[in-house]
């Protein structure tokens, strides 16, 4: 793409690191920005580990990887982002943090720079409201893990200029990603359907209709889904599901989005899923929860 050559990813966490891999791999000069050099160093190590695996699998050569890595610049100095044509923010899911970041970036970056947000639950229009350039802000929601998943949900805020949206769309395609256009409504498409569906699953289990393993088997065998909903919830993390519920229910008041009591109890009992070794399944003993 002609006008976008240099990009920045703000936030070197799970999503930001993945997105920076996608951008650098697609040939863009890529700055990965975070608040501390330590975080940057940790992210850089993980990114190098990812590319080492790409080489081992024969997807990339050593030469290609060193070329990609030479395009990646980690920094904790915001001034370094002054040459960027587009910044994707993937900082904490907190409106104040995003406003503060974009407000400061607005002073550093040139007029033409587009700000894209990877938010999962916040409104693009609301984020844009604190950016000082709401016509040049767009929603660009990557999926986890960003370095492997092709889908990007793109949504304009109320004030987003059509030209901004088009440029960001073309950029997304040049990343070799697959953008889909959606609206600035809670959860866009994916989470809008997934969060209440997962809550329904939890309520079904809570009301004693079936055990987690029976639900997972039914959904996988009956519908051909690659993962059962309880397996998926354990992977996402039950604490994350609580946060998604809270964010969506607050806006939509949809009863299906309300946090099921069982979910709250499981989080209170530190059964967060894979990350604590126990969720709907027990990962230490490979045994079932409940019964």
């Amino acid at each position, binding site marked *: 793409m002609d006008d976008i050559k240099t990009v920045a990813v703000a936030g070197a966490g799970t999503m930001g690191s993945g997105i920076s891999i996608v951008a650098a791999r697609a040939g863009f000069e890529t700055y990965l920005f975070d608040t501390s050099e330590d975080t940057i160093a940790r992210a850089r190590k993980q990114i190098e580990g990812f590319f080492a695996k790409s080489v081992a699998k024969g997807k990339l050569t050593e030469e290609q990887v060193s070329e990609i890595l030479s395009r990646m610049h980690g920094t904790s100095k915001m001034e370094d982002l002054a040459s960027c044509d587009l910044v994707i923010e993937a900082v904490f899911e907190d409106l104040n943090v995003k406003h503060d970041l974009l407000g400061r970036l607005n002073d550093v970056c040139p007029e033409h720079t587009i700000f894209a947000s990877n938010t999962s639950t916040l409104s693009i229009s609301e984020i844009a409201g604190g950016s000082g350039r709401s016509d040049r802000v767009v929603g660009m929601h990557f999926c986890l893990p960003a370095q492997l998943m092709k889908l990007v949900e793109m949504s304009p805020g109320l004030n987003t200029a059509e030209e901004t949206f088009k440029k960001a769309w073309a950029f997304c395609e040049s990343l070799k990603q697959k953008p889909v256009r959606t609206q600035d409504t809670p959860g866009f498409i994916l989470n809008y*359907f997934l969060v*209440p569906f997962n809550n329904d699953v939890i309520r079904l289990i809570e009301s004693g209709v079936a055990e987690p393993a029976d639900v997972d088997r*039914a959904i996988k*065998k009956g*519908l051909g889904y*690659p993962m059962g909903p309880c397996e998926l919830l354990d992977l996402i993390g039950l604490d994350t599901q609580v946060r998604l519920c809270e964010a969506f229910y607050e806006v939509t008041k949809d009863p299906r989005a309300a946090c099921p009591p069982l979910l709250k109890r499981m989080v209170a009992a530190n059964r967060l899923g894979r990350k604590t070794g126990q969720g709907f399944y027990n990962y230490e003993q490979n045994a079932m929860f409940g019964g």
Partner: protein
Amino acid sequence: MEYQVIKAEGESRSFPDGSEFMSNASESSEIVVLIGSNAGDALGALSDQESKRAILVELGTECLALHTGESRGREGSNILGFARFRLGNDAPSDLVELVCQPNSSEEAIDSAIQLFKEAGLEVSVCRDFAGRIIDRLVRPYYNEALRRLDEGLATADDLDLTLKLGLGYPEGPIELLERSGLADHHDVTKPLFEVYGERAYAPARRAIVAKQRTQK
């Protein structure tokens, strides 16, 4: 494992005519499988019910209790319900939902699981509620997909593509409903709406229209 099949009136959605499951059945057995769209009605004519290890009644959208009755939350016997999950006129899936009551016989449950497994199927055990597991979970999702299509959340193609790419679903909701039939979706979700009274089960506008068009 030996089993006897009694074919009641009406085509079986789980084991359509000519299926191997029927040809592999014995003349008589202590496990009896009642199939057909009126399988539950044939239960009354079955003699010597208590002596059977298991009696498996094919269910439609109804609860097993319609055929067995219920008693203060203590119901349950050697009579179980079952259905192979099936979308519209698609071939039946390999998933059997096995319907139990609070005091169903463990021996009957174990026998049923073994029998269906030997027939190459997988079994999910569930309690006797409308929609069992899969319909109870997917019908709200299908209704919501149809509603959000009406509201312009995204094009039908983009809705489908997003769910396939994002979650690895083999098919998006709109293409799935077009293929398996919007009117059929209406017929499955409407009784669930009547039982649960939740808006999520109320047939979406597009499903109602499709149903009405079949009646024109």
